[in-house]
């Protein structure tokens, strides 16, 4: 049954990439990449169970954090034009 869930997550990733390519605004693309990162975390965790290696949970945990930080960073870059101190508004 892990194989069925893995195939479902792979189909989900393909559909999300379609939205990332199509999306008329840039926020559509940022949304698609954030959801793609979440699907990647699920895929890594499922793959760890599929191959019987429990060490993949560490990689999934790390990528969940990286995904969140990179979404916030790209939103900040898009709004303020730089990643340093934000100007007070």
């Amino acid at each position, binding site marked *: *049954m892990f194989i069925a869930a893995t195939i479902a997550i792979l189909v989900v990733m393909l559909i999300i990439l379609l939205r990332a390519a199509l999306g008329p605004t840039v926020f559509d693309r940022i949304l698609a990449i*954030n959801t793609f990162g*979440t699907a990647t*975390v*699920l895929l890594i965790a499922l793959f760890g*169970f599929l191959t019987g290696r429990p060490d993949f949970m560490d990689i999934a945990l790390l990528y969940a954090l990286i995904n969140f930080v990179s*979404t916030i960073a790209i939103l900040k870059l898009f709004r303020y034009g730089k990643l340093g101190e934000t100007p007070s508004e």
Partner: protein
Amino acid sequence: MQIISVLGWILLILGSFFCLVGSIGLIRLPDFYSRVHAASIVDSLGAILILLGLMTQTQDPIVIIKLVFILFFMMLTGPTAVHALARAANLADKESK
């Protein structure tokens, strides 16, 4: 253990079903804010159900604790990122009007 394993299969199947539904909504819905809602379905419901289903499939306590950590971080950061994105899009819309 058999009943917990069967419960785990059901959770996995439900989780992947919600992920599929959310992703189909991501390409089919007409407006950006509707797509934000569809993507947050994948982030919160799909991820939580799949991770809960995976927790029941193993006996090793360290793997279960790691899955609890992943679940905790997903519940904390998933909706936050989507909310920040929707707020940023709203502010950009207001500025361009």
